């Protein structure tokens, strides 16, 4: 016989881990174990975007935690129109951008002051084709250039979407991307 508790909370029965919508529904009903499944599935993807946008491991971990806590708090608004991964990824991007809001406001105009700082950093010993070298070079970009580069070239957002997310003008976003690519090429070819 099914217990009264099970009758009262049918969505809290252990969901099939392969059925993401069922796992998300259980999490929405307060099942922390189900939410942990979603965390385990997407933490790598969320942390990757946080790390690249923030350019700092400690801040990236803080933002990853914040993103999942915010996702938990907002689960009631998750309707499953997109995958949970896409949804929490967007939350993560917004979390990092909010942390950098001041820097983004200051980046309304592209300057060359930071380029000099970047150019003074010695190049790594590994070859330019090496992904780790590119990761390190991205982390060393000036903040606004780094964020636009990651959002456009790595995450595939358009300049219009980036403008909406960051508050930068579309033209400024394009200028930061151009600058980021130039700085990266110079560094990778050094």
């Amino acid at each position, binding site marked *: 016989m099914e*217990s009264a508790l099970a009758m009262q909370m049918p969505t809290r029965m252990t969901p099939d881990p392969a059925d993401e919508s069922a796992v998300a529904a259980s999490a929405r009903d*307060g099942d922390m174990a189900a939410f942990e499944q979603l965390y385990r599935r997407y933490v790598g993807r969320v942390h*990757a975007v946080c790390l690249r946008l923030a350019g700092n491991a400690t801040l990236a971990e803080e933002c990853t935690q914040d993103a999942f806590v915010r996702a938990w708090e907002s689960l009631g608004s998750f309707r499953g129109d997109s995958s949970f991964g896409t949804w929490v990824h967007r939350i993560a991007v917004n979390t990092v951008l909010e942390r950098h809001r001041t820097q983004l406001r200051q980046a309304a105009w592209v300057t060359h002051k930071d380029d000099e700082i970047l150019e003074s950093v010695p190049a790594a010993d590994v070859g330019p084709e090496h*992904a780790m070298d590119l990761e390190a070079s991205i982390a060393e970009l000036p903040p606004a250039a780094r964020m636009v580069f990651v959002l456009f070239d790595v995450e595939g957002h358009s300049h219009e979407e980036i403008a909406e997310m960051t508050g930068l003008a579309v033209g400024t976003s394009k200028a930061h991307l151009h600058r980021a690519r*130039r700085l990266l090429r110079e560094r*990778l070819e050094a």
Partner: protein
Amino acid sequence: MNNVNDDKPIKAVERLPREIAPGRDLWPGIAARIGRKQRNRHPLWAYGLAASLFVAVGAGGLWFGLARQAPEAATVPAGQLAAATPDPQSQYFAQRAALAENTVQSAPNLAPATREVIMKNLRIIEGSMQQIQEALEKDPNNPRLRSLLYDLYQNEAQLLAATQQAQAQTTTRNEL
């Protein structure tokens, strides 16, 4: 001077990994934070919980009393997260966790899947409590840690109260 190549994507970007694991497991910290928030959420099964909370709080007081009166009499089952040490506080923590799990395990009318969900949630809460307790030993006056621990105790009490309520309702239905 601008170079036309600056407007082209960098090839190596395609080889960047889509996932990068963090340097440490972030889940315990997340679980502690959402555990604190959880008391403000009202899942469907939690309606009617307020009445049984009184029972759970009373039971908590009883456990505390028992643990203080006979700390050596209680048995900590194998597999508990009880890293039981001679420290009375740790011993109490382990005994309380064991009693909480026994409460769920000894409810005869719970469906196995339901019992499993409750046990999983209970262990998450207890694991978070243990970590916060360890942090408090290093920083005993940290108000945020104390607040988090308090919230986790509340969550545990709510979960146990819901279990008791479900068990009582099932018993009544069976009697009918």
